[in-house]
């Protein structure tokens, strides 16, 4: 696929995103930097990944890959192209019964090993925006297998009002992406404790 189409599509999507949300990035106790990282955020709309991606400084974008559900992004040729070529997304199976954990994790770990960053929504699916759902364990397994990688909590504000679940009509509202201090898995920390702490880190950014 030719490069200019990808660049036009990326510029167009970032532009639409700016009109709809204002894309305000607030970096608290953390700075944008290159290198392996996992940005993990609350999930309330289809725009979430795009907003984090657009909030990053331009040069970091092509090295930051949203992790997204294969069943949604493979559903049409356009979505497939957007996910694969424009966002450089990593598509994963989200149906727990038909998948093997390590098969899902391998491509993510390979990305981190190559010095790339990931965007992850540990709730697994979009909520209604009222409360953050309990986190699924993928974030924990990444943290355990790559303990040196920084895990950056991100709180997305207002996105659930821009494009809530169940509609394709967006409403323009000012949104913010708040980036907080990075977390790491502590020695001997249990899975449930870590996931609770990670969720609390996202929730704390809401204030």
């Amino acid at each position, binding site marked *: 696929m030719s490069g200019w189409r990808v660049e036009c599509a990326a510029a167009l999507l970032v532009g639409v995103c700016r009109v709809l949300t204002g894309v305000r990035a607030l970096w608290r106790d953390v700075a944008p930097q290159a290198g392996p990282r996992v940005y993990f955020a609350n999930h309330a709309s289809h725009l979430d990944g795009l907003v984090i991606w657009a909030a990053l400084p331009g040069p970091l974008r092509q090295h930051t890959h949203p992790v997204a559900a294969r069943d949604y992004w493979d559903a049409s040729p356009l979505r497939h192209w957007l996910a694969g070529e424009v966002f450089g997304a990593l598509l994963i199976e989200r149906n727990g019964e038909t998948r093997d954990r390590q098969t899902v994790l391998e491509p993510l770990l390979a990305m981190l090993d190559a010095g790339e960053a990931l965007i992850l929504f540990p709730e697994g699916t979009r909520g209604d925006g009222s409360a953050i759902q309990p986190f699924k364990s993928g974030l924990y397994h990444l943290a355990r297998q790559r303990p040196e990688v920084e895990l950056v909590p991100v709180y997305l504000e207002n996105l659930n009002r821009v494009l809530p679940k169940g509609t394709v009509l967006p*409403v323009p509202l000012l949104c913010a992406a708040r980036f907080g201090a990075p977390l790491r898995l502590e020695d001997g920390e249990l899975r449930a404790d870590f996931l609770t702490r990670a969720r609390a880190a996202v929730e704390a950014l809401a204030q």
Partner: protein
Amino acid sequence: MSGFGFYGHWLLGGVLLVLVIASLIGYRLTQRPLSERGRATVDNLNARIRAWWAMCAVFAAALACGDLGTVLLFALVSFLGLREFITLTPTRRGDHETLFWSFFVFLPLHYWLVGTRWYGLFAILIPVYAFLFLPLRSALAGDTEHFLERSAKIQWGLMICVYAVSHAPALLMLEIPGYSGQNATLLIWLVLVVQLSDVLQYVFGKLCGRRAIVPRLSPNKTVEGFVGGVLSAALIGTALWWATPFTPWQAFMLALLVTLLGFAGGLVMSAIKRDRGVKDFGAMIEGHGGMLDRIDSLCFAAPVFFHAVRYWWT
């Protein structure tokens, strides 16, 4: 097609001169030893001056593109203002489609009416049709919680950010005998007087402000700033009578009218901000806050000025 020929160029040239002088003063202030608080004030002042350069450049560029450019600029201003207003307004899922109609149907349609000079429908589209349709759309969504409040807030947002603001570019549709082809100059005069009044109220307030008018609302709006700003802006508006269809005396009365209304707009919009617990509507204009923080005075001044001119001069 109405341009801003000879007189408009003089007005814009004057604005350019004032900006150059303001920038020079701003630069001189940074060279003086200052306390920390003084330094913060000077930095904010310079940020505001830089933003004024940008705003004036955008406004002048839009005017240079003719009526279409001007109408599109104000449509964009309305869009950004309404986006800030609705962001601060607690709405529910049941309002989503109503909001979509407000932003993507009524706003463009209303500015299309401005552009095509369809005065009859321009005057009633929002107060009649949008006001009846929008609550209906919310009612169809079936969520009755805080229904009256939610409807009122959306209607108010549309009224202030779209309907009121659009009366500034609507000046272009007026046919004023002996002034044809100059309407854009009248628009520059209005915006200039209203915004100068804001600036001068700020300057007088900083220099000699003592007694706050409504302390609970805004400690920065003082009697001294109000009197000094409104009077000096009204006098400047009078001194620029040659660019308008007015005599000097009429120019003074109208300048006084729009500066007083501008003050009222600032006060009402401050009350909304206090109600929502924020200091500014947004952060898009450096040193000023959001779009609504900059145009709050114009929201109140433009419609009344439009109707005064329409009633007595056309």
